[in-house]
């Protein structure tokens, strides 16, 4: 394995839990859960959602909401990394995950086509300009970009996009990578997850004994991955590092996770091995924790098995909802914040331990003294991904 250290030099996040990182941390601290009725689109369904209600968020007919969310989070990350004046001669890569932005699922377009046999092309044109990674490159005027990829791996897209960035940097294809994920609230996944009976009619309760399903959310989480040598040349001393990534398939079922959790175990093992760390070195885990019966059962048991019964873990989906393609990006940011500030929030929504899982997540704002965090993602279709992040 190449010896290059890959630093994390910028973080950006937008979700119902906050329009930027400071707001997010405040809401984490206050335990604020900003869920409500969906107003972005018409729906016959009455599930609570974590919609971003921010009037400064541009909603225009030419640019998909997902893109605007990504731009906002990326701007925050780029500012922190001090690239706001451009990237100079550095070789930049962009690797971003999404689900909604990649699909032409405009109901109005389709309705018109169905009824009239024809429909205007504006939503198609908008879609064709909405490849997330490409759109970000254009927004930040990054030209001559050879490493530019949009990952569509369902709920682990954001985590996997970060893993792709790590791979490129380790192989010295790029000097830095803008990585993470973004997704907007959309009628299609709301209807779809509803039909699968995995959406809760009340606020979600990750890992809870009485959990009744997920709440959908939206947002974007972006990190700047940078070779440590490049950061030093820029006179920066990074303190956060991406040390490992693991990805493994269940090969079990299209929608249900493998009951024995071996896919997640494999991903965790791989990520820790790459980082040259052991489970006991991990201070806390930001789990996928969607609050569905299946996910939390499998994931909770694996975390207990790998990290022991005293494992410190939480799901932040009680604050953000399940943001699909953005989840992995947001949760990598949250893992970084936990290490940087030395605390993590409670696992919002959790009340009672599930005896089937056997371990309980963190129940109140907790100090973190260790130097290593793990973020896990489990996706539809059976993808299991894990990141290992460390702090100096």
């Amino acid at each position: 394995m190449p010896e290059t250290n890959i630093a994390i030099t910028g973080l950006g996040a937008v979700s119902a839990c906050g329009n930027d990182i400071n707001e997010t941390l405040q809401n984490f601290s206050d335990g604020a859960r900003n869920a409500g009725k969906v107003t972005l689109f018409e729906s016959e369904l009455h599930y609570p959602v974590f919609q971003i209600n921010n009037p400064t968020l541009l909603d225009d007919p030419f640019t998909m909401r997902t893109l605007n969310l990504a731009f906002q989070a990326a701007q925050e990350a780029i500012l922190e990394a001090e690239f706001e004046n451009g990237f100079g001669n550095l070789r930049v890569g962009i690797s971003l995950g999404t689900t909604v932005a990649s699909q032409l699922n405009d109901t109005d377009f389709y309705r018109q086509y169905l009824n009239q046999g024809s429909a205007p092309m504006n939503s198609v044109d908008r879609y064709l300009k909405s490849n997330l990674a490409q759109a970000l490159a254009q927004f930040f005027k990054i030209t001559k970009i050879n490493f530019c990829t949009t990952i569509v791996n369902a709920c682990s897209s954001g985590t996997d996009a970060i893993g792709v960035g790590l791979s490129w940097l380790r192989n010295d294809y790029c000097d830095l990578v803008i990585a993470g994920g973004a997704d907007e609230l959309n009628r299609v996944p709301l209807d779809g997850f509803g039909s699968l009976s995995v959406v809760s009619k009340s606020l979600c309760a990750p890992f809870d004994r009485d959990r009744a399903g997920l709440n959908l959310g939206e947002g974007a989480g972006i990190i700047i991955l940078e070779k440590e040598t490049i950061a030093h040349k820029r006179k920066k001393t990074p303190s956060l590092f991406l040390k490992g990534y693991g990805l493994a398939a269940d090969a079990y079922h299209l929608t249900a996770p493998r009951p024995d959790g071996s896919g997640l175990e494999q991903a965790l093992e791989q990520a820790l091995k790459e980082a040259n760390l052991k489970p006991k070195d991990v201070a806390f885990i930001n789990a996928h924790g969607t609050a569905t019966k299946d996910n939390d059962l499998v994931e909770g048991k694996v975390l207990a098995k790998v990290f022991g019964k005293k494992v410190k873990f939480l799901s932040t989906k009680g604050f953000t909802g399940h943001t699909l393609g953005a989840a992995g990006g947001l949760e990598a940011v949250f893992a970084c914040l936990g290490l940087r500030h030395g605390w993590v929030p409670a696992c919002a929504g959790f009340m009672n331990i599930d005896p089937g899982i056997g371990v309980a997540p963190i129940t109140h704002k907790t100090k973190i003294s260790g130097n290593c965090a793990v973020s896990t993602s489990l996706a539809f279709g059976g993808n299991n991904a894990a990141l290992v992040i460390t702090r100096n």
Partner: protein
Amino acid sequence: MAENKEAELKTIRKKLKELLVSHLSLEDVVPEKIKDDEILFGEGLGLDSLDAVEIVVLLQRNFGVEVKDMAQGKKIFYSVDTLANYIYDNQKK
């Protein structure tokens, strides 16, 4: 009355078998060959969790019957018979 009920159940079972085959893409399964007491999940037809939620849609669309709570699902979806009886009991007259 009992004969009416049995006749109706027979009709429901026949329609149900045809719908299960077509709606769940059960290739190589002949509706007429499915037994009335055929177990739907695990052994028998070998359906899975995705089929379970699909059957909920099937019931809604073809019989106007809702399944409000998936936890009840195990009992209702046990066999063709139990499913047919559920439909009979809950169908809007």
